[in-house]
């Protein structure tokens, strides 16, 4: 009996200490995850040392992330009265975290949004209109590329400042094409006009390349083939994704079918092998002649040793030049607590500085959004980017719809079953319309 008492005390102590460590453990973890938020909260309340401190959330990882962090550092060094604390969120969870942060009352002062996601954020009421704030610091909307800017205007109000555009373009391996005599004097690929010309180009490549080298590296699943379809759909003069009411989907028409048939034919004819994996790495290894993908890959390709590549806007196969495009923009999320004018001013100053220095950002491969940046010396010295600059103007943005991403997912899936041979072009497009309208109805 006497021996049991110390045992009892010992066991209670163990339990209590486990509880305590569990609590502090989770707090530490929460501190780690939201530490920036909590830290931001604490410091956003105060002005440490006379500086205005603002928090900035973005979703840039990898090469993009390094360049953005470098830019934030440059801003902080050149602005003694403002300090920006940048936090990179995981790409896949960024928007969920942004929404929950706004509803929880601890949103960052500045955030990033894809243009295609902006209508959802605007309709949820979690981003602020920027017109008045722009006036505060004298930011001029005219310096922005009008194509990119127009996609960020809702009801005549600006809801974001475009940072860049990342359209779908075509990378090509200069060495492979040169050996096939498919490069002209300017080292640009020789592609005859029209759909037959492009097919002819691909066929020459397929027949001429050595074993183990692929022609065009295009995946038959996911977003890549869908973006090519969107490019061709708009090259054919397609009327858009949804109608005026925003409830009906209008892609099941002549242009939609023709574009889908073209892409489907690439796979069905064997010109492009189905289900290719790791196409980026394959191109980097020099084992592929063409790679249609977004401009974001330029930085990575530049860093690849021994790769001789070029970049052009996605070829005009049909009636007019067009390609898929999306862009990153800077937004000011809604703050549930009282508005702090100092912070708003600081945020706008930061936004203006970043967009003016689009040339630095362009090191990641993106097209800058301001004429200031495009005309700067720094930008003109960067290779490749000038070659595809025009794509920023020809790119057709997806429409403003609060449910854009969910319906885009449905479209991607329906198109995928066409490329996989699971449904015909007609059925695939009909399914796409059906599934997309189901979401739009809700």
């Amino acid at each position, binding site marked *: 009996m006497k021996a049991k008492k110390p045992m*009892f005390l010992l066991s209670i102590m163990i339990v209590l200490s486990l509880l305590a460590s569990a609590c502090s453990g989770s707090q530490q973890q929460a501190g780690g995850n939201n530490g920036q938020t909590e830290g931001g909260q604490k410091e956003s309340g105060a002005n440490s040392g006379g500086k205005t401190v603002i928090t900035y959330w973005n979703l840039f990882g990898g090469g993009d992330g390094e360049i953005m962090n470098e830019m934030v550092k440059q801003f902080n060094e050149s602005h003694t009265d403002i300090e920006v604390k940048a936090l990179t969120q995981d790409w896949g969870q960024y928007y969920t975290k942004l929404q929950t942060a706004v509803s929880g009352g601890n949103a960052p002062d500045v955030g990033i949004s894809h243009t295609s996601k902006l209508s959802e954020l605007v309709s949820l009421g979690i981003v602020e209109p920027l017109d008045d704030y722009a006036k505060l610091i004298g930011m001029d909307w005219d310096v922005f590329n009008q194509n990119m800017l127009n996609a960020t205007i809702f009801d005549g109000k600006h809801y974001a400042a475009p940072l860049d555009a990342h359209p779908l373009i075509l990378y090509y391996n200069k060495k492979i094409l040169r050996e096939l005599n498919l490069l002209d004097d300017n080292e640009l690929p020789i592609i005859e006009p029209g759909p037959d010309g492009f097919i002819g180009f691909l066929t020459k490549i397929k027949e001429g390349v050595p074993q183990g080298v692929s022609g065009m590296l295009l995946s038959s699943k996911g977003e890549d083939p869908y973006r090519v379809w969107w490019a061709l759909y708009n090259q054919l003069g397609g009327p858009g994704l949804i109608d005026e009411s925003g409830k009906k989907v209008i892609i099941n028409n002549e242009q939609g079918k023709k574009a889908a048939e073209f892409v489907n034919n690439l796979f069905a004819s064997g010109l492009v092998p189905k289900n290719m994996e790791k196409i980026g790495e394959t191109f980097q290894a020099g084992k592929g002649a063409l790679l249609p993908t977004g401009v974001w890959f330029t930085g990575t390709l530049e860093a690849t040793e021994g790769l001789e590549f070029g970049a052009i806007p996605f070829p005009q196969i049909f009636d007019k030049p067009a390609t898929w495009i999306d862009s990153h923009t800077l937004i000011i999320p809604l703050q549930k607590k009282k508005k702090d004018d100092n912070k708003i001013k600081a945020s706008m100053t930061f936004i203006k500085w970043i967009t003016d220095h689009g040339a630095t950002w362009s090191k990641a491969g993106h097209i800058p959004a301001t004429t200031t940046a495009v005309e700067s010396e720094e930008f003109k010295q960067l290779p490749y980017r000038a070659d595809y600059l025009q794509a920023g103007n020809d790119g057709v943005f997806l429409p403003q719809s609060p449910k854009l991403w969910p319906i885009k997912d449905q479209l991607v899936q329906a198109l995928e079953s066409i490329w*996989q041979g699971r449904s015909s072009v007609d059925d695939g497009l009909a399914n796409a319309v059906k599934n997309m309208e189901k979401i739009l109805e809700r």
Partner: protein
Amino acid sequence: MAIVARERLMIVRPGKRRKKLYNNLLATAFLSPYFLFFFVFSIIPIFYGIYVSFHNWTLIGKESFAGLENYIYVLKDPDFWASLWNSTYFVILSTPVMIAVPFFLSLILDLNLRGRTFLRTVYFLPQVLSVAVVSSIWIYVLQPYTGLLNAALHALRILPPEQEIFWLNDPNLAWISIVMITLWWTQGFNMIVFLSGLQGIPTEHYEAATIDGANYWRKLRYITFPAMRGLIVLLTVLQVIASFKIFGQVWLVTRGGPGNETRTMIQYIYETGFSANDLGLATAMSFLFFIFLVTLSVLQFKFLGSKKD
């Protein structure tokens, strides 16, 4: 007499009641941390989820009361039934395999082989890996053009060089691949449970059978199977429930593709909640699925369960 004896006991050992109280307190102290977390993080969210399912609810918060609208929408939604069928199809394909293979493996390991401890470890080891690791490994094995399996088939000239088998992209093959991956990953657990069940069967039964002249198969049929029956039923029920909840491997290996043909129930709930931002609908689906699983389990126990031999 008994009453007098008890009273005597109470006089002789006055601390007995105190000891019982002490034991109860000790038990409560050990159990309470777990129950606290269980209550806060499992029970309360379940009821909160029921509350959410009666509203229109996004990640921003509650929007409006919806009554039974979400439930009616779900029951009329063809995608809901399609993904329910996909999960059911997986259960039908995988459950027999997930019970039979571990059972026969455990029979092998029950024999007195040399190196059986090593074999036991080997068969159980995949269970230790996480779903992301398992999926990555198997994508490398099964992917077209560069995957291990297709490369081997090409090297052995079983597959002509121009052809590829799309293990992960053809819907029928994709299901077989997912069953194969799941089997490789999780059969170890069932196997260990069966093994311990086998080792609980008294050897005298087998000896008696040998004396009566029974061969291996008769022993299996008349001794092993009846003795293991309860365990087989239990593991089948658990396996069915676990298989219905499949999400990770399918998401990582096929993303529910091509199109939506391998999209499971859990994946559809996830996409509805977090991609289409409709939490009311997602929770309604979750509850209908829960009711479905509970009904199924009850039926299973009823029909497979208590037949006394």
